[in-house]
């Protein structure tokens, strides 16, 4: 039986806050106008007005909302607001995001004559910028990259104000903003400007699986010459050498919550939704059931493709390429994009990272079995309040460990550090230390040793 806690009316936003929110709304309206307007000059105006208004409105709102209050944990009314508590606003946001991904993936392919389907009117306002950065006109992926980067930067600004009391969060937020802007946007653009292969130095196999597939490897080497060879080398070294070494020293966080673009979006634009991840044991079981098979699948497909490349389809036929195509559709597009981001407002910001990402699965295995990283619990100081579990975007029931005095060593932990930031009693701390005794509980409290952690 749940107690009857009458939902209170939320405190009224100040007029200044309302003004900034109105600017965001006006910006979204302008974007709609740009999308619907056939007149090129006008839609350009609407488009840039929209970008400016949404960005400035969001930053100004964040400054008012978080910057104007004493620095500290600011979660008031998180579950009571419709936008962050799975209310009507959240469902509408989810539908819009999901719809955008569907349109982007399947209804906005270029026809070779500069038409980009349903997103055409939003692509062309970026032509000038794209020419300047990449020396070629914009396409739907450039539009997506621009939106994505703006989202990370603007919502990163919000995160910086919100978490300014924690240097760990501030530095980490700057890191994801830096990698998104530099490594996932400017550098790939500049590479194209110099007619080099578009390459993302912060994505590796098995997340960006094509980088170690025969086609991409051949293309990179053929078109990129020395730089292409370096890119293939870089990808292989990052996947097979740097990843185990860095994960050994720092846990998977060095990638998932500091460098990765998916993680970058989750930590910034997804931050208002982190509490929505399902903490139940059932969800954990599904996580294990899905994420490791995805990793196995991508390994098998990669192997098939290389076999295929070696024997030219003589033995296995088209098994490799067909599997690759379906993987790209089901995992690459539907899972990571439509579900991964579209469901932010309903299932939290890390649905893809938690249930689907093969890179996260790989890093997680390393983190669990070959790493010095753990989240330490401070003796017996836990009061079982549940704030740590609430803010865990990966759906880890952190509290189950903390209240037993046990360190948290979990494959899925991305090391965002929010449990430590939100803990009102200073109980949790992300630490790299000796591997001996890494999972040993504090003697200051006695673990109940019942089947809590299944």
């Amino acid at each position, binding site marked *: 039986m749940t107690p009857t806690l009458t939902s209170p009316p939320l405190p009224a936003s100040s007029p200044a806050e309302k003004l900034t929110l109105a600017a965001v709304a006006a910006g979204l309206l302008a974007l709609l106008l740009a999308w619907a307007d056939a007149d090129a000059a006008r839609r350009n105006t609407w488009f840039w007005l929209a970008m400016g208004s949404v960005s400035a409105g969001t930053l100004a709102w964040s400054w008012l909302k978080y910057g104007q209050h004493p620095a*500290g944990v600011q979660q008031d*009314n998180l579950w009571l607001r419709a936008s962050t508590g799975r209310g009507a606003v959240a469902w509408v946001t989810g539908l819009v995001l999901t719809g955008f991904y569907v349109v982007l993936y399947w209804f906005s392919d270029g026809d070779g004559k500069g038409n980009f389907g349903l997103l055409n009117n939003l692509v062309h306002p970026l032509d000038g910028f794209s020419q300047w950065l990449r020396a070629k006109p914009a396409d739907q992926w450039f539009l997506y990259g621009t939106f994505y980067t703006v989202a990370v930067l603007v919502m990163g600004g919000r995160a910086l104000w919100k978490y300014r009391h924690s240097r760990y969060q501030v530095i980490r937020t700057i890191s994801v903003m830096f990698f998104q802007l530099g490594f996932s946007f400017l550098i790939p653009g500049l590479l194209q400007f110099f007619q080099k292969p578009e390459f993302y130095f912060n994505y590796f196999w098995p997340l960006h699986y094509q980088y170690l597939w025969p086609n991409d490897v051949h293309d990179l080497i053929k078109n990129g010459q020395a730089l292409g060879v370096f890119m293939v080398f870089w990808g292989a070294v990052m996947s097979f050498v740097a990843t185990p070494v860095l994960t050994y020293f720092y846990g998977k966080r060095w990638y998932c919550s500091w460098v990765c673009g998916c993680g970058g979006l989750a930590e910034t634009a997804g931050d208002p939704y982190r509490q929505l991840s399902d903490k139940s044991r059932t969800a954990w079981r599904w996580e294990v059931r899905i994420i490791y098979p995805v990793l196995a699948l991508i390994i098998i497909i990669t192997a098939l493709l290389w076999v295929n490349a070696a024997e030219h389809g003589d033995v296995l036929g088209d098994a490799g390429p067909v599997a690759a195509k379906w993987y790209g559709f089901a995992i690459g597009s539907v899972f990571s994009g439509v579900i991964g981001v579209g469901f932010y407002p309903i299932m939290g910001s890390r649905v893809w990272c938690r249930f689907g990402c093969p890179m996260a699965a790989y890093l997680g295995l390393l983190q669990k079995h070959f790493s010095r990283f753990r989240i330490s619990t401070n003796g017996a100081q836990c*009061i079982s309040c549940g704030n740590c579990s609430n803010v865990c975007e990966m759906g880890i029931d952190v509290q189950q460990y903390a209240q037993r005095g046990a360190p948290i060593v979990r494959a899925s932990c991305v090391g965002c550090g929010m449990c430590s930031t939100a803990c009102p009693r200073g109980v949790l701390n992300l630490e790299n230390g000796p591997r001996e005794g890494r999972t040993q509980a504090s003697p200051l409290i006695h673990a109940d040793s019942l089947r809590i952690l299944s």
Partner: protein
Amino acid sequence: MHLVIIGNGITGVTCALTVRRLQPEARITLVSGESAHHYSRTALMYVYMGHLRYQDIKPYGDWFWDENRLGLVHATATALNASEKLLTLDNGSTLSYDQLLLATGSESKLFGWPGQHLAGVQGLYGLPDLEAMARDTHGINRGVVVGGGLIGVELAEMLHTRGIEPVVLVRDARYWGSVLPPEEANLVDRQFQENHVAVRYGTELREILGDAQGRVRAVVTTAGEEIACQWVGLATGVTPNLTLAKTSDVETDKGILVDEFLRTSVPGVFAAGDCAQHRQPGAGEVPIEQLWYTGRMQGETVAHTICGQATAYRRGIWFNSAKFFNLEYQTYGQAPAEPTPGLSSFYWEHPAARAALRIYFQADAPHAVVGFNALGLRLRHAACERWIREYAPVGTVLAHLGAANFDPEFTRQHEKAIVADFNRQFPALAVALKQRKGLFARF
């Protein structure tokens, strides 16, 4: 054995879990009228503030109880017949037991103020209080909080997040004067100021005034001030809940009287947690402990005795924690609020007044450290506990202060400044900092 536990708070639940571990075959029943499942009392404020939902403050999933064969009865025990080992429940049924643990917790303490039963006047202890507060603070603009302790600041913060102006009445000349030395209390006061919460120190409640509908409309303080308000939170402490115990022969005083094995005067009946009063508390300990941590420890201890492994309750080295708005507080060992003969204390405060550390140590050589207060800093429980237990000299503790640093990575480290300050204040004991923070540094 059928163990019945009255109360599903931290004490009762810890006892149940421990008995399940020690005696896998035991039949265990938890009885509570307050809630169907165990929830964390300390987290009530977060539900009010919208940080969490009620289901988020349940430390275990609902499946947990069945899987571990812990029977839950959602009813209030109204009478205890200890000679027949029989409980009467308010749902009309009875429950017999072999062993009984009374873990009935507390109720808010009232001091007979005129008007204390008006609508809109309450304490904050359990779920019914939270429901009342959620209901009665709708659309109001000012609430008065009476009490300068941990619940007082919580209530002020709760009201503050709803845009309701809190006014806090504190009896002592400073916040939590019985526990915090003036410097620490001053830092807490800075939090009140920063959050624009008015605090009246040296002021008590004289009377609560009602309107024609029987609702609170104002309070009158001992300074004679009348403060208009629509809600009053009484945070002047809690007292053991003896309602059930009083229906039986179990001996009570302020609490249910127990010996060091947490046995009451009646064989087969135990009491632990908030409701228990120790006949002979340990040196420097109080007879009634009303804390999450002590409730947990008592629950675990009594479980051993219930299972035939008689274990005396030893609290061990004291620790506690709290958070005052944005200021975290941890304390370890002996940390008196007033100067104590034979004890010296070293106090360091960051210039920005958001962090402070006090170390208590014996005035005589070898100046063994006895306690810590930390504000805005996180200390490692294990390190502090070990130093206190091993009578580590203050010089050793300061030289290795980094070992106790539990702040998150990249947090500014203050050890250098702290040691420099110590050397200024205690030149005769001057030390050099040898150990910085980090897990590796401990080895």
